[in-house]
Structures are given as structure tokens and as C-alpha cells.
């Protein structure tokens, strides 16, 4: 019992020891009279595990202040996000933080806006998701470029985003937006026929075909195995697509079926020793090692 009482006193002593360091860091970080580099350094060095809710509010005030240098505001934002991983005061502060982040989605600085939307999207925040969807439907309302909006929406995929993603695939504002729309649709089983078509289209961009292979692997693995086999057997196929398909067959193939496929084995043995790219040879080697060849 005596030991327990003694132990119970220790955290108080610990907090006392930490307070001056935290106070000093807060004072330096929030003082607009100090140079930006010193303030950023103070924010990084702040003993955040011992920070109080008031400390976190003081750091948030720096993020909110648009007259502060953007580098300091971004560093303050990183400090708060670090606190979300490590500060006992954070759970109580969380509501204020989320509310502040929502307001910051309208911030004039694009980088800060993007980071804030990222945090909210990862929290599956409905407010942020609506803003992102609104921006995709009406570019005048867009807070971030369409490819970033699609990427952020993918943190919490639900059917509401699918129609706009399909529309972007059909009429993309740029190739990256099309890629991110496809990535978002990868979870949609209804999109499997589209991914089959894209995978087999030799005129399609390599990255799009590879995304299609991964999408099929996730939603219709047997369908991918069928196409992967045909692609590996096709000498006119692109090396990179063959390597991707070989990787799928190696890591995720039905071992019994694949091991009994003599034509496939012979073809992969030829790829290992032939004129294929290093990527294909490496994938062929890995495949044959797995199957004891």
C-alpha cells in the first residue's frame, strides 16, 4: 500500500517538472515577435505528451491566425496532429480541434486547406466529405484539385461518391483525376466489367491497366487470374503488365490450379531466361521459386 501511495505522487512531480519546458515552448511558439525558425523549432521540441488542453488551444490559435507566417501555422498544425498520437489532453480537446479544422477548410492557403481536409477525411467527417463532393460536382466550389478530392474521399468509400467518380472516368479533367477516380471505384464490384476492359486494352496507359488488375484482384480474383494467365501467355503484351500479372499469380494465385498449368509453367520458364525486361525476369524467378522450378 505504501508503495502505491508513493507511486501515485510521482506523476504530479513529473507534471511539475514538465510544465516549465512546455510553458517556455508555448510562449516561444505563440509569440509573433519571435522569428519563424525559432517558433517552428519550439513547436517541434514541445514536450507534447505533457501538454494541457490550454496548451493545445494556444497552439490552435496560431493555426487559426491567418496573419501568422504560413510555415509557422503548418508547424503548429503538425504539432496538434502529433498531439493526437501522444497527448493525454487530446481526447478532451478533440471536439474543438475538429470544429476548428472545419472552419480552416476555407483558409486562403492551399497547402493548409489540403492538410486540414486530409485530417477531416481520415476522420470520415461528413462535413468535409460534402465539401469535397460539392467541389467535384461544381469546380467553382472546389477547395482542392479534383484528383486530391477523389483521393481524400477514398478514405471512406461509399456509394455516394461512385456516380461522380464514374463521370470523371468518362470525362476526366486530367489524367491524374482519372487515375484517382478509378482507384476510388476499385472497391465497387459493379465496376468489374470496366476494369476487365481496361486491363485488356493494350492502348491504355500502363498505370491504369495495373490499377485495373489490382481492382479485379480485390473484387473478382478468379477473373483476374483468368486474364493474368492470358496476358502472361501473350508474347505481344507489355512487359510491365506481364510482370504485374505474374506477381498476382505468384502471391495470390490458386496454388493447385497454377501448379498444374503446364503451358503457363513453360511460358514463365521461357520468360525467365528470355529477352524480357528485368522486371519480368524477376517476377518470373519469384514465380518459379514459389512453385519449386
Amino acid at each position: 500500500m505504501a508503495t502505491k501511495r508513493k507511486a501515485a505522487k510521482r506523476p504530479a512531480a513529473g507534471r511539475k517538472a514538465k510544465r516549465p519546458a512546455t510553458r517556455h515552448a508555448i510562449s516561444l511558439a505563440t509569440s509573433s515577435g519571435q522569428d519563424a525558425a525559432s517558433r517552428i523549432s519550439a513547436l517541434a521540441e514541445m514536450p507534447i505528451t505533457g501538454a494541457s488542453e490550454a496548451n493545445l488551444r494556444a497552439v490552435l490559435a496560431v493555426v487559426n491566425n491567418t496573419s501568422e507566417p504560413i510555415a509557422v501555422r503548418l508547424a503548429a498544425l503538425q504539432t496538434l496532429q502529433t498531439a493526437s498520437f501522444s497527448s493525454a489532453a487530446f481526447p478532451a480537446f478533440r471536439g474543438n480541434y475538429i470544429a476548428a479544422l472545419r472552419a480552416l477548410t476555407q483558409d486562403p492557403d492551399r497547402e493548409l486547406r489540403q492538410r486540414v481536409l486530409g485530417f477531416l477525411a481520415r476522420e470520415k467527417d461528413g462535413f468535409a466529405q460534402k465539401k469535397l463532393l460539392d467541389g467535384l460536382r461544381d469546380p467553382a466550389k472546389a477547395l482542392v484539385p479534383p484528383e486530391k478530392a477523389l483521393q481524400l474521399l477514398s478514405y471512406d468509400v461509399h456509394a455516394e461518391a461512385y456516380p461522380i467518380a464514374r463521370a470523371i472516368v468518362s470525362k476526366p479533367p486530367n489524367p491524374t483525376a482519372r487515375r484517382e477516380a478509378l482507384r476510388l471505384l476499385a472497391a465497387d464490384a459493379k465496376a468489374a466489367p470496366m476494369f476487365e476492359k481496361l486491363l485488356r486494352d493494350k492502348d491504355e496507359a500502363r498505370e491504369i491497366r495495373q490499377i485495373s488488375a489490382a481492382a479485379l484482384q480485390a473484387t473478382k480474383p478468379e477473373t483476374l487470374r483468368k486474364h493474368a494467365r492470358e496476358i502472361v501467355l501473350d508474347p505481344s503484351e507489355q512487359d510491365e503488365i506481364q510482370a504485374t500479372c505474374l506477381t498476382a499469380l505468384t502471391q495470390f494465385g490458386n496454388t493447385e490450379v497454377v501448379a498444374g498449368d503446364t503451358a503457363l509453367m513453360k511460358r514463365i520458364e521461357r520468360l525467365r531466361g528470355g529477352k524480357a525486361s528485368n522486371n519480368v525476369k524477376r517476377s518470373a524467378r519469384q514465380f518459379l521459386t514459389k512453385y519449386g522450378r
Partner: protein
Amino acid sequence: MKVEIEVNNSTDPKAQFVTWTPSPCRIRVTDPTGAAASTVNLRISATAAATGGEVVFRSGTSGAFSATLTLQVPTSGSTVPFFAAGRFGRASTRNGDATVQARMRTTSVGSSDVMVRIRKNANILTNDERDRFVAAFAQLNNQGAGRFSDFRLMHTDESSPQAHFAAAFLPWHRAYLLDLERELQAIDPSVALPYWRFDQPAPKLFSRDFFGVSDSLGTVQFSAGNPLRFWTTDGVQGINRRPFFNTSTGRPGVRTEAQTLALGGAGNLYRLFRNIEGNPHGTAHTSFGGSISSIGTAARDPLFFLLHCNVDRLWAKWQRQFGRSNPAQASAYDSNPANPVGHNLQDSMWPWNGIVGGDRPSTAPGGALAASPAVSAPGAQPRVQDCVDYQGSVSASGRLGFDYDDVPFA
């Protein structure tokens, strides 16, 4: 004559792994043909390839290790115990690249292929080690349909107080990593979890053949032969990770290793060292945009586990440097009644304890902690105190079966 060598007191091929920490072994005569007396003198030694693991021996629980050991073994079949360990600095690069051999005079009478399996800096893995690790990880996830989804669900906003903000931050994550590592080893026993040394550049880790290269949007790109190309979590394809530092030449703005090891202050106290949870741990997480920078999504990115492996390595190094492995020492842990549930030494840890509701989260994904064929600790439902003395320096039966390439046995 023939003998049987049991590494980790087992003939199971999945138990033939050693670390820097001594493994209990035994030897027995299985065929005494040719033996003239009731006991024979056997010389135990190990052979290794040039880049392979090197094994050393000792007869008891204390004393120096040596390259050879002579044991008097009865021909009756009774076992004789001894200990084997990897020679510090000489880890294996592949399974069975070292052989423990027993000789009677010059004749080999038995052997066992072993691996000195050690957690290494991810940036220095051989290509083969890298490929095996990545393949095992991809298979564990199996596009989001595999066992890895449990690990995703263990690290969420709801479960965060079990794992963060208090004393058990380090032991909880040690158990979490060990659970994952054992699942990876069930797929490929030659795999050990590597660490991302975040205070140094790690260009090989951030390459298309390993954990990928982020484009300007933060979508991670992989080579065609990298199975992480098929990575899917929570129904979402790919990995979002936008570094705020140059991954080819730079590093995050985290505390250096020396600064981290000094966190315990003049008394080298755990309750101060625990500030590792902020910088470097939290700072390493938030040196990126993307999944890894929020608690609820961090474990979607496999880099999460290499980041935490380095946090665990730093704790191991601090424990070794300051003799802080005995959980009973007040300076080695920070138990006190003010700690939340799950953060005192005697507390069992969620989710492995299966307790839900009340002060614990509403679900307990994943079940018990994975067992190891080589060691018995920390058990299916570990307590905090079971994850402090990872080398079993206080109680040998408490060793957890892993070691780091730059932290010797205490």
C-alpha cells in the same frame, strides 16, 4: 552413432531460430551404435556461409559464449541441455544459413540448420530479405481480405486510449508488433520485422521495390513485381502517403537517436523516457500527409509497423544502455494507480484479453496473441509486465524471441 539436436528444445523446423538472446537447446543420442561407453564426448560447433548467421554456445545460463562446446552425453538417450545464440553482429540473411553440428572426434553425428533471425534496419536488407518480407506482408493482407484486417481494427480512434497517452504506450505496441511479426512468420518463418530508422535517410526503403515512392499527390507507386501494388485496406486500393521531407536524401525533423536515448533525464527514468511518444514517435507519423498521419488510419500503411519497430528498438536500446529491463524497478516502468486501465504492470492488454465494454473498447478484434514455436512468452493474453523484459534478462522464460541488429543481449 546418431544424435538429435533440439534448438529451443524443439525439433519443429519452425523453432530452429535463434537471436542474440540465449535459446535453450538439448542434445540426445538417438542411435548409440558404435559407442563403447555409457557416455560420449560430443563437440558442438556451427558452420556458416560467408554472409550467413553465426552461432555461439555455452553450457549453462551464465558465462561466456564460445564457438565450440564439448558435452558429455549419455548413450541412453537422455538429453543434455546447452544454450545457443547468434553472435552479435552476425545475423542470418536466409533461413537455415547456419548449421549447428555435433561431432564425435572428427565424425559428424548430427546437425540442425538454424537461422539467426534478427530485426534489421530496413534500409540495409538484402534484396532477397526485402522481397520475402514484402511478399509475406502482402499475403497477410491478401487485398484486405486476410488476417491483417484484424491489425487494422486494433489501432483505431476508439482503441487509442488502450495504446496511447499513458505508460503502456511502449509495451502495448511491443505486443502489437510481435503479434504481427508472428503472423508474418507463419507465412514465411525467415522473415523478421525490419525497422525504419527515421532519424537517418532511408532511400532503399522508400523505393518502388520496397515501400514505394510517393508521387506529388501522395499516391504511392510500386514496381510491377512488388506485391504491395495490390495493397488494399478497408476496401480502398493503394497507399496514400505524402512525405514532408525528401525520402531519397532527407529524413523527418525528429529527435536523433542520441537525443531520444537522453529523454529519461539524469535518472534515466521511464516516466520521462515515455516522452518518446511525442517526438520522435508522433513527429515521425506526422512527417507525412496521408493515412499514417492519423491514428484511425495509420495502420493502413505498412510503413506504420516499421516506424513503430524503430520506436521499440529505441526503447530496447534505452533499456540495455541504462539497465531498465526489470519491470519491478520503479525506474524501468511507470505503474501507479492514476494510470488508466491497461497501463499498469499487472493489467492485461486489450484486445488480446478479449475484454470489451466499460473502460475497454466495444470490440476486441483478432483474438489471442499469436503463439511462437520458439518461445512461450508473452502468452496468449499478455499483461503489460510481460512485454517489458523482452530478452528475459530477469526471467529467461520471459524472452519474447526477437532482437535488434544493434542491441546486444543484456
